[in-house]
């Protein structure tokens, strides 16, 4: 059987940096074909070529055995290739129907909208989605927006469906539902390409897996035969060892949160009467199902949200609950927020500027009217080397050009370059691959060993268990249970559920 989609000898470079170096890929109709690899391995670039967004420097794209030169995304769609991007390509103020009409144009607007509405209802019913075609996209949840993207692609008649890290933005339950749907789609004869770096998804839902590393295809395997260890080794190159934990005596309390209450912007109280303390040389893990007030708590701690009442006490300045973020930073608080581009990086500024913004206030780069830009560039370059931020052509390039993992490393490089005494990290490894994840964990442990107090808020229980000295379980805005290391996974799970 000829593959539905076949890519051979694909090379592509962006401004001289090689993203793809002779990559090959082939997916058959009726299978879920996973494309596995670390951040920056070239998965997204390769699939963007398949979907007509990028033009390869060399190499061929063949659809059902026929070599094609795709002139653009519309051409790819006409040939039955549809891609759901990691960052959705939806027009937020438009309704669902308008968005789908935009991608699948009809001759007339009004009859087109009616036609699309019927199509959406039918397709949504088939897939088991609950989507109202007349709602505005900006009012939908992320999971619903993704469903709109999938319906959009299928209504366009796609026989080859490319999903770029579809579960990165979803909760576990949503992700499971999506992947079940994807399996059913494959059974109906669609070739599904699942771009991911999550091994368990590959093991559970894929019929075949192609592994990429450094812009090349390293192997194609049957995920039901290959062991997880084998796949990991192929993905990472050599398996990254777990960082060593040394037991250290605990110091004095550096951060104390007392009876903290926080509300969401719409007034809903999300953090209710939360109290905990963190000592020097300790990692305090906060586990819990996403949406139980972790985001609001993290924002309150880093100074991005005003608490309603309660105390956030830092060694040194004392209660800083209502104080601006600058005061916390001066007191040595480092923030690694979950949403890097909302709270930690200015995408359109250079890497050097993003690096310097944390310390420039202190005057270490000269007075405001005479900034020493050479020193900023020098320090940024040093930090980039020290923290292994990759994909940097120059420190003058935009931070938005970094891949997710490297952007996170840049945040960490900036925050840790000041030797913080208190670290607040919220989902620090979200969206990162194995190696980047290990690097982040290593940094957090190093900060703890240096005597910093670390608050680790994460929905990933494995991460919490691997790193924390003490674990609090957060449910409905309260800390409902606390465990000391070594904690029992089952017990923590029970605490999360019991109080929900």
């Amino acid at each position, binding site marked *: 059987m000829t593959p539905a989609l076949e890519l051979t000898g694909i090379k592509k470079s*962006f401004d001289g940096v090689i993203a793809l170096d002779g990559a090959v890929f082939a997916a058959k109709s009726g299978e879920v074909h996973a494309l596995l690899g670390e951040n920056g391995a070239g998965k997204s670039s390769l699939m963007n070529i398949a979907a007509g*967004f*990028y033009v390869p420097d060399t190499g061929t794209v063949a659809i059902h055995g026929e070599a094609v030169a795709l002139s*653009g*995304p*519309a*051409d790819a*769609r006409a040939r039955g290739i549809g891609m759901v*991007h990691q*960052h959705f*390509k*939806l*027009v*937020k*103020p*438009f309704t669902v129907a*308008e*968005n789908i*009409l*935009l*991608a699948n*144009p*009809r*001759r*007339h*607007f*009004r009859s*087109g909208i009616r036609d699309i509405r019927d199509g959406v209802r039918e397709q949504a019913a088939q897939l088991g989605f609950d989507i109202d075609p007349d709602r505005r996209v900006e009012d939908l949840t992320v999971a619903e927006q993704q469903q709109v993207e999938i319906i959009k692609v299928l209504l366009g008649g796609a026989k080859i469906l490319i999903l770029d890290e579809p579960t990165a933005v979803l909760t576990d339950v949503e992700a499971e539902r999506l992947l079940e749907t994807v399996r059913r789609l494959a059974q109906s004869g669609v070739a599904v390409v699942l771009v991911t770096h999550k091994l368990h998804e590959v093991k559970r839902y894929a019929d075949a897996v192609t592994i990429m590393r450094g812009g090349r295809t390293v192997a194609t395997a049957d995920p039901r035969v290959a062991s997880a260890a084998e796949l990991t080794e192929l993905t990472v190159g050599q398996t990254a060892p777990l960082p060593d934990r040394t037991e250290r005596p605990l110091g004095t309390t550096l951060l104390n949160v007392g009876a903290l209450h926080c509300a969401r912007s719409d007034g809903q109280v999300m953090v209710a009467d939360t109290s905990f303390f963190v000592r020097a040389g300790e990692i305090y893990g906060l586990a819990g199902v996403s949406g139980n007030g972790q985001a609001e708590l993290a924002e309150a701690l880093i100074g991005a949200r005003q608490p309603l009442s309660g105390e956030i006490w830092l060694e040194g300045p004392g209660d800083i609950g209502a104080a601006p973020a600058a005061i916390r930073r001066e007191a040595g608080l480092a923030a690694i927020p979950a949403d890097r581009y909302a709270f930690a990086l200015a*995408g359109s500024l250079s890497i050097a500027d993003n690096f310097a913004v944390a310390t420039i206030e202190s005057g270490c780069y000269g007075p405001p009217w005479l900034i020493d830009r050479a020193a900023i560039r020098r320090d940024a370059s040093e930090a980039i080397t020290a923290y292994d931020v990759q994909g940097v052509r120059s420190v003058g390039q935009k931070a*938005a*050009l970094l*891949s997710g993992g490297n952007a996170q490393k840049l945040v960490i490089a900036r925050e840790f370059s000041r030797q913080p005494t208190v670290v607040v990290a919220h989902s620090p490894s979200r969206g990162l691959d194995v190696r980047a994840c290990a690097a982040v964990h290593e940094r957090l442990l190093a900060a703890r060993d240096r005597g910093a107090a670390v608050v680790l808020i994460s929905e990933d229980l494995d991460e919490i268990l691997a790193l924390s000295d003490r674990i609090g379980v957060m449910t409905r805005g309260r800390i409902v249970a606390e465990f000391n290391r070594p904690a029992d996974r089952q017990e923590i799970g029970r605490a999360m559920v019991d109080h929900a």
Partner: protein
Amino acid sequence: MQDFLINWLANVPGTAAPYAFAALGLIISERSGVLNLTAEGLMLVGAVAGVGTCLTIGNHPLVALVVAMLAASIVSLLFASLVVILRVNQVIAGLSVVFFCQGLTGLIGTLANWQNHPIAGLNKIAIWPLSDIPVIGRILFVQDPIVYLAIPIFFAVSIFLRGSMLGLKLRAVGENPAAADAAGLSVSLYRIGAIVVGSSLLGLAGGYISVVSVKLWITGMVGGRGWIAVALVVFARWAPWPALAGALLFGCIEGVVPRIAAAGIRAPQYLVLMTPYLATLAVMIWVGARNRGHQGEPGALGQPHVREERR
């Protein structure tokens, strides 16, 4: 007093028309995501082209207005290539086009000796018998043809934006060019098209001032109306009908200025002349104070689009 009111209101459509056309033209181009500050300049181009046509081929005002539209569209290609192809900062490009046009129209007017030569222009027509209705007749049904034309044009643009495939695509380009690109649209082509078509309305607005209202070319005669139109678009939240309402409001303010002197009311002249700009300022402050600064604003306004940029 009644005469004062009727005279004043009868004048309003004529003073409002340039604002209305200019704002509509700006809405078309800004809905595609291009921040367009060229209004003042392209209106001058339309104005000089209109009068020039009448002085050259004889008094054919409708031909003159078409030439005005074409002239503005052609000059707008300069702006389009600057911002869409070369991706120059849209504010800088807009301002430089205004200065370029101010110089160019002044030069052409002087070289061709079109300065201060009155033309017959376009006159008002009375729609009988509606024009004989007391009060309302003189205000609504004794106007020039272009004012009447404004109504179907507004309907057409409004339907185009809200309920046509092309309008949907144009708005998508302005809201989220990456999504439009993914849908297979050429962002550059749509933006160039929107600038050129929108600019033809700016040319019409300028031509209206010189051919229909003043019936004369004077260097710099647009006199800031283009800038007011830019503000009007923000006030109207990029929607055609509110823009028409805003144009009428400014038409009222501008129309009252000469009436006040004619009615023998004594007021400091410069203070009176200042009112349109004062009103603009007031409107902008009001819009700002409502704290809905970005509502209705096209999502990608002022942002150039490049496809092969990783994020």
